[in-house]
């Protein structure tokens, strides 16, 4: 099974096959493209062909994780006393663009119940179509299409048993010091937000969901940057990875020896055919291939 995750202009991949002792990673790596376009089957073909040159596909089953820039995000309030379909219907009447539904698919995911809010994710139909068409040409099938940090959350939950925790944070360290974070409490999404790190400060860029909690976490990251943090109190555990192919930022976080921070990298818990020692910092971008482990007890 092949997981393909896009982050910026790079495509990362991880291929695994079943074995007696669990999933066996038979290949992983990354490729950089001048333009990571998923909007035509030809461009997806090109990506898959490049990966196929690196790994042998036992089973043509694919999972795709796209960069968040490929989708649009918004929220909708969903008071319990009102049918959410009515709210969404009302909202569409207020702000509908007649072309939008022709070109986009909109998904509404619930935040934690107490927030009474939906996270809306809008994805171009052309991307889904091209992925499906392309994988068919390889006589394969696509099982999942997700978005970067949400796929990494799968890695935390299925590979690191994060679902057993009361609360956890997934921290995606990104290019240009712009990070994305998810906060999960009681197995429900509290917040999805992004921040910009400077040497000793953190600035919130965008918050979807629980604003207070996001501000609390951002405050703790700021404390960390100033060297004043011993561990995160806003969640039981923080899973951190670096989405670009650099690794100094994530290494610094891990080497700070904070009480409850874990490097998120599926290779840490999987058997691999890879010869030699694996640098878990350098390969933490593979966290975003985590969607391929859905439903598995890794």
């Amino acid at each position: 099974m092949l997981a393909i995750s896009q982050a910026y202009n790079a495509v990362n991949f991880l291929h695994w096959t079943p074995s007696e002792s669990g999933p066996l990673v038979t290949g992983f790596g990354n490729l950089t493209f001048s333009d990571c376009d998923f909007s035509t089957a030809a461009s997806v073909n090109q990506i898959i062909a490049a990966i196929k040159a690196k790994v042998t596909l036992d089973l043509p089953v694919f999972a795709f994780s796209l960069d968040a820039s490929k989708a649009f995000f918004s929220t909708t309030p969903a008071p319990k006393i009102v049918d959410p379909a009515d709210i969404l219907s009302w909202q569409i009447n207020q702000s509908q663009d007649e072309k939008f539904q022709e070109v986009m698919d909109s998904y509404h995911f619930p935040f934690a119940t107490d927030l009474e809010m939906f996270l809306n994710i809008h994805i171009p139909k052309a991307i889904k179509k091209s992925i499906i068409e392309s994988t068919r040409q390889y006589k394969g099938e696509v099982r999942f299409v997700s978005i970067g940090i949400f796929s990494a959350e799968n890695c935390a939950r299925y590979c690191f048993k994060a679902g057993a925790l009361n609360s956890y944070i997934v921290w995606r360290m990104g290019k240009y010091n712009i990070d994305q974070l998810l906060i999960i409490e009681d197995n429900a999404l509290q917040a999805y937000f992004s921040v910009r790190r400077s040497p000793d400060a953190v600035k919130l860029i965008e918050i979807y969901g629980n604003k207070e909690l996001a501000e609390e976490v951002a405050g703790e990251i700021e404390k960390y940057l100033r060297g004043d943090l011993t561990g995160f109190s806003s969640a039981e555990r923080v899973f951190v990875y670096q989405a670009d192919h650099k690794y100094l930022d994530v290494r610094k976080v891990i080497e700070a020896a904070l009480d409850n921070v874990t490097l998120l990298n599926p290779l840490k818990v999987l058997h691999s055919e890879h010869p030699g020692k694996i640098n878990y910092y350098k390969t933490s971008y593979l966290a975003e291939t985590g969607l391929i482990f859905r439903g598995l007890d890794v």
Partner: protein
Amino acid sequence: MFDLNLLGKPGIQPQVVQTTYSFIEQKPKPAAGFHREEYTEEPLEDGRPGRSRAPFLILLLILLVMAGVYFFNTGRRQAALPAARESLSVQDEVSQVISVLGNLSDKVYLQRFLITPEIILANLRSDDQIELNMLSVELEDLLKVQCRISGSKEFGVLLSISIPIEYESQELNDTTPVKKIMEKQGLSDIRESGLTISATLRNEDIFPLLQNMLEAGFIYYKKCWIECRVDQDCSFQLLYDASSTK
């Protein structure tokens, strides 16, 4: 926590989504031979765990019935205004907006810009939502600005900016000096009618022109509307109306 899968039926998704969609031979089929095991409450480990379990690869296929409601909505992001902000003069505010918008990244396109005696409005479009997010943060830092980001036609994301302004001024009775500034700027197709001037201009000329008009004071007249709007051929149409009763 839901498993985000954008392959399924659009619409409202359940809190817990563990759904596999198979797209092969143009018809969905279950993922045979896989099931999902219950998770055990084992302690969290950073290292490689032991591997003594029976073959694990079982993924229980649950095709959840999803209530299909094809609704699009755009959520609002209403900017929170900082409690204490340094008070700026109207001229400073307008100048700062012009300065920020005059230095947009290549990924952001101006679609409409309007200055009236009460409000400044700007619509910006981009395919990169993060760019617009950062721009709105920057503007919010500077001004009492309200930003709203929404999805729009042709995949784009729209950032709408509105800034309430107030000033008292006299009416402009002669637009000749305004026309001269436009001519000096090299604008083409300048048309004058009463106290209204329209012209065609290039994207890169918009903000230098507005800055010149600002410095000359031609923005602050009662009944004065200045509007730049992108035309069908992607050129900008400028309307300077010193007699507006809107």
